[in-house]
């Protein structure tokens, strides 16, 4: 990452380069409008405009909300009051999130890879040669949007479930943490998708890679535990795969609250984002 060298004002370019221009017809043009120094705020505003002005955002988030809220209400209606003695009220959202996380992954991937697919990335990086700034803004905007949407929908499911179920000992479990952790987990998966999309630069490839990353660790352990040599690996995969992690966060596993699973995802996402930053600065667009 390089920061621009300190330049008092771009107008200062003219006198500096003036000797080279001698003999050229006409004099160099300087815009009468003052030039502002760009910063992350500009990139955030730009990315916010971008993410809200494409239909894929509306579609993926719409389906996400439909799955989480619809699925949540369905599960909530099918469960009994007594279930919530040892389950948090947000548990119904877990079922919707299992499918809904794919929507957030897709959106995360598309935030970067759609620019590569359309060639927009050249326009973007021409408008802001500080590539790291654009990428950081993408991550921040996407994470904020997906966290608010997912936390809001989990919270809504929790509130609706709480209003539908009551009784002695029901709802004694505090469920505020599950809203935060659940939303954090699926949003981080989306950010991971964004980083993978930036590295692979191909929408379909990146979405497939992310689906593999989410689904394979929940399928492979079945085969891995057969052999003694891979049994340990299989058990770890079983414990930390995305589906099981969400189950733990929403208390479906009993006991564990999924803290270590969230931390693992934080680590993996940070590594992918770091890799994406390095590649972004090095590669040709």
């Amino acid at each position, binding site marked *: 990452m*390089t920061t*621009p*060298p300190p*330049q008092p004002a*771009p107008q200062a*370019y*003219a006198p*500096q*380069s003036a000797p*080279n*221009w001698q003999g*050229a*017809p*006409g*004099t*160099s*043009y*300087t*815009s*009468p*409008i003052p*030039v*502002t*120094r*760009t910063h992350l705020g*500009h*990139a955030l*505003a*730009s*990315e916010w*405009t*971008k993410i809200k*002005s*494409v*239909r*894929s955002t509306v579609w993926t988030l719409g389906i996400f909300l439909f799955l989480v809220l619809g699925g949540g209400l369905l599960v909530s209606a099918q469960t009994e009051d007594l279930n919530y003695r040892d389950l948090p009220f947000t548990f119904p959202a877990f079922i919707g999130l299992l499918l809904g996380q794919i929507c957030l992954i897709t959106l995360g991937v598309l935030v970067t890879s*759609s*620019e590569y697919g*359309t*060639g*927009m*990335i*050249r*326009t*973007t*990086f*021409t*408008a*802001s*040669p*500080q590539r790291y700034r*654009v990428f950081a803004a993408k991550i921040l905007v996407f994470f904020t949007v997906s966290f608010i949407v997912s936390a809001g929908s989990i919270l809504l499911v929790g509130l609706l479930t709480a209003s539908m179920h009551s009784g002695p000992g029901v709802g004694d479990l505090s469920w505020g943490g599950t809203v935060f952790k659940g939303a954090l987990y699926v949003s981080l998966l989306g950010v991971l998708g964004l980083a993978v999309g930036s590295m692979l630069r191909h929408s379909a490839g990146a979405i497939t890679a992310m689906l593999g990353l989410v689904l394979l660790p929940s399928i492979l352990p079945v085969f891995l535990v057969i052999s003694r040599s891979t049994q340990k690996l299989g058990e770890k995969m079983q414990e930390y795969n995305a589906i099981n992690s969400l189950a733990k966060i929403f208390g479906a596993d009993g006991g564990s609250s999924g803290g270590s699973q969230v931390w693992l995802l934080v680590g993996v996402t940070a590594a992918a984002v770091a890799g994406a930053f390095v590649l972004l600065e*090095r590669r*040709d*667009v």
Partner: protein
Amino acid sequence: MIEAVGLTKRYGAKTAVYNLSFQVRPGTVTGFLGPNGSGKSTTMRMILGLDQPTTGQVTIGGYPYRKLSNAPRQVGALLDAKAVHGGRHARNHLLCLAQLSGIPARRVDEVLGVVGLQDVAKKRSKGFSLGMGQRLGIAAALLGDPQVLLFDEPVNGLDPEGILWVRNLMKQLASEGRTVFVSSHLMSEMALTAEHLIVIGRGQLLADMSVRDFISHNSADFARVRTPATEPQQREKLTAALTEAGGQVLPEQDGALRVMGLPLPRISDLAHGADVRLWELSPHQASLEEAYMRMTQGAVDYRSTADQRAGLQQQLPPGVMPQQQFPAPGQGQPDWYAPPPPQPQGAQPYAPPQPAPGGPNPYAAPPQQPPTAPAAPAAPAPADLNKPEDPR
């Protein structure tokens, strides 16, 4: 002011741009010419910091592009008209670019008006025609009121009105003291727009000079001489006389002669002396296009060949010679341009390649010729004339 020094870009084994050094000065429109695949777009991308040069560097106003603190306010670029997210409105596309460099939203509406897209500002750019896409790209370039402008093939897909508009826009931008760098392969367009030319072929600099110099350096002005078609011996007589006097004589396809190196009055005198009547004696000044073709003919990577439609014909049993079909002269191929006159300075890096002795033109010598076939179908002129060697 754009300055490239020793710019080289390799993609694996392929060298796209090699040791390119040039300056683009403010106040004029500088044309950037070269055949397809000659490295124009690669050079543009390196100027804009999208591609990292393998060696060498390119600066804008003294700074590498990626070190500019607010690039769109200093450099505006149109690289690819279709480099937009098709699902976004034209206005939102420009707005997100404007926000990146702190340009207010009302400027977006302003440039939409400048390029004439205000009526489709809320239409998704997926449905735009190529010409509308070009206008959108030009709007993006103008957004920051920059002092340096780069356009890669800006008139592609524009209607005649749009071409005229782009031409005037560029001249106007240059007259305001901006640096305008335009790549194109439309020579006629460059002849009208650009004052200075940078020509590359196979990634190397072929020329860096004003349009006028370029034409005079790379085109031999010639005289077209036509002798009575009824008397071919007069033509040979005149050819001999002109050659003897130091002129260079080339036959043309329709039987006329192209004479270089002799002024018109002298040709007339020689014809009179040789007792040859003339039906035509006319001066010809080469166009920019011709000068360009002559310069780059050795540097063209992609050449068309005549379509023989052999793949569609029925396979003949082995041993049977198929009926030879010869392409019409010049079919699928541009005319070959005579080499430029000897130049005082600098060697021509791309002399037209001489045909290898072992590998002649595949059409020139078919293995078994029907007796009626012409000796060299690519050369319609009688074979006794000093026909230039086929460059292919």
